[in-house]
């Protein structure tokens, strides 16, 4: 058999976002990969240093990505607060942590649901998304919108949480935990799901370290890397954060690591809601940002990196964003070589690629 080139993307039923792969295949085995990203480039980094002032940046960077809008807004807010020497109180930290973790829950549930869908298990996909709806309701109630949260602002959060909302969130989180455990059981022990995911796209620990992978992909291979533990930006340890790792490193393990993190995040959210400190939800802000700084935050997909530079003007000098998906593309290309074409969808989706982040 000769060589056949199979295009995968940029428009494909299995892909939620536009990325294009060109596979050279021989007898359905992939021998060469070419990846193209950047279909959704919007020039956000340029807009951040020309059109928008520093206090509008959280609203702009929230629109880098729909799924981790809280992460991007949080990162830029944290950076600007560092540049302006703003100290926020404990309550603001806790409220920020709450939305960050809720964001992680819904992003992970979406990723796991998509993996189930592309391996041909539509039913499990629907069950996962049904369970996910509860956390969307909680976020909508807390922030006031379903997708674009705009919750973190410079010097605080947009609105305080009242007793009624906290009770609502607790009730929903309890229901969510039951549902997650049920769905996790299906992902864990279902025979047909295992056939398509166990032993597919295996990354060893050495490989993960060599290619410098980030997020759940690294942790599924047993590599202990998590910005929440490494970089001090919010007091995660106080509310019961534990690093979740698995050893297998295949598609299945990446799914299970995400579920472990979801359960850990639910526990953290419950702790936050039970022990919310007293205080104002906004602190006074004065002056303009000056100097340069680096921010690392743990997005649902891994380490998200921000470099900010300002010189006391209204408009920043430089805003550089590096997102986790970009860091994971080299190993993704490596994984395809020698894999079957029919496994390609599961491998791509298990990485939870976010192209609108990557292309910005």
């Amino acid at each position: 058999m000769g060589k056949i080139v199979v295009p995968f993307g940029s428009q494909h039923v299995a892909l939620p976002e536009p990325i294009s792969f060109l596979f050279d295949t021989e007898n359905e085995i992939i021998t060469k990969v070419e990846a193209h990203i950047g279909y959704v480039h919007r020039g956000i980094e340029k807009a951040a240093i020309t059109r928008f002032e520093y206090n509008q940046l959280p609203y702009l960077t929230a629109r880098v990505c729909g799924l981790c809008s809280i992460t991007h807004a949080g990162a830029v807010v944290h950076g600007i607060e560092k540049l302006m020497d703003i100290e926020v109180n404990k309550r603001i930290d806790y409220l920020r942590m709450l939305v960050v973790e809720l964001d992680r829950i819904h992003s992970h549930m979406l990723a796991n649901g998509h993996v189930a869908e592309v391996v041909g298990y539509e039913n499990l996909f629907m069950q996962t998304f049904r369970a996910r709806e509860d956390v969307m309701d909680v976020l909508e109630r807390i922030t006031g919108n379903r997708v674009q949260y705009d919750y973190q602002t410079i010097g605080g959060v947009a609105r305080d949480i009242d007793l009624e909302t906290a009770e609502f969130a607790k009730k929903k989180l309890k229901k969510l935990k039951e549902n997650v455990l049920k769905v996790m059981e299906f992902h864990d022990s279902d025979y047909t799901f295992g056939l398509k995911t166990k032993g597919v796209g295996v990354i060893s620990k050495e490989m993960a370290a060599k290619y410098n992978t980030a997020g759940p992909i690294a942790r599924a291979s047993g590599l202990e890397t998590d910005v929440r533990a490494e970089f001090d930006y919010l007091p995660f340890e106080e509310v019961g954060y534990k690093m979740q790792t698995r050893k297998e490193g295949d598609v299945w393990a990446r799914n299970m690591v995400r579920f472990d993190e979801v359960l850990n995040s639910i526990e953290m959210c419950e702790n936050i809601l039970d022990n919310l400190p007293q205080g104002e939800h906004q602190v006074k802000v004065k002056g303009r940002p000056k100097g340069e700084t680096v921010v690392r935050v743990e997005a649902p997909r891994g380490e998200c990196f921000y470099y900010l530079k300002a010189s006391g003007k209204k408009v920043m000098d430089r805003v550089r964003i590096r997102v986790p998906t970009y860091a994971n593309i080299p190993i993704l290309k490596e994984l395809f070589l020698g894999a079957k074409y029919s496994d390609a969808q599961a491998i791509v989706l298990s990485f939870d690629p976010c192209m609108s982040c990557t292309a910005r």
Partner: protein
Amino acid sequence: MLKMFIESLKNLVSEPETIKYPFEPSPEPKGYRGTIHYNEELCIFCDKCENICPPGAIKFVVVDYETGKKEYNYNPYLCIYCGACVRECPKADEGCLVQVETRTPPLGRSVPKGKELGYFINRIDNPKEVESKWREIEELNIKTKEEYKAYKKAKRAQKAAAKAKGEE
């Protein structure tokens, strides 16, 4: 596999998770970030909301240079409903700028009307004109502000000259 089969069968008799939206109303949840309502009587024209608005959906246009009267123009179809203007407004507690919990209706055959939406949307009848008319407002916003600045400067110079003359 069997477990999932039983779970799926249960779905046939359990309550639906979705709502039949076009046939049933889809109510806004509590605390929803909806339309921005404005009260001109309380406004002190500090322009803070205009300066913070990320998409630039609030524009003030100076209509009378003598008195410095400004008109509040708000484009609900450019607004991202982030609520930054309300947080910035010094008179928000009294009800100058309020974010209500109802959605703006989608732009269909008619344009929503109401005094609380400002001048811009009330002067338009054809929904197709919203975009082009907003561009005019944006140009007017820059032009009138510059002219007003120049007018004030000229007036100050005039006053100073008159004062100097009086002293002589």
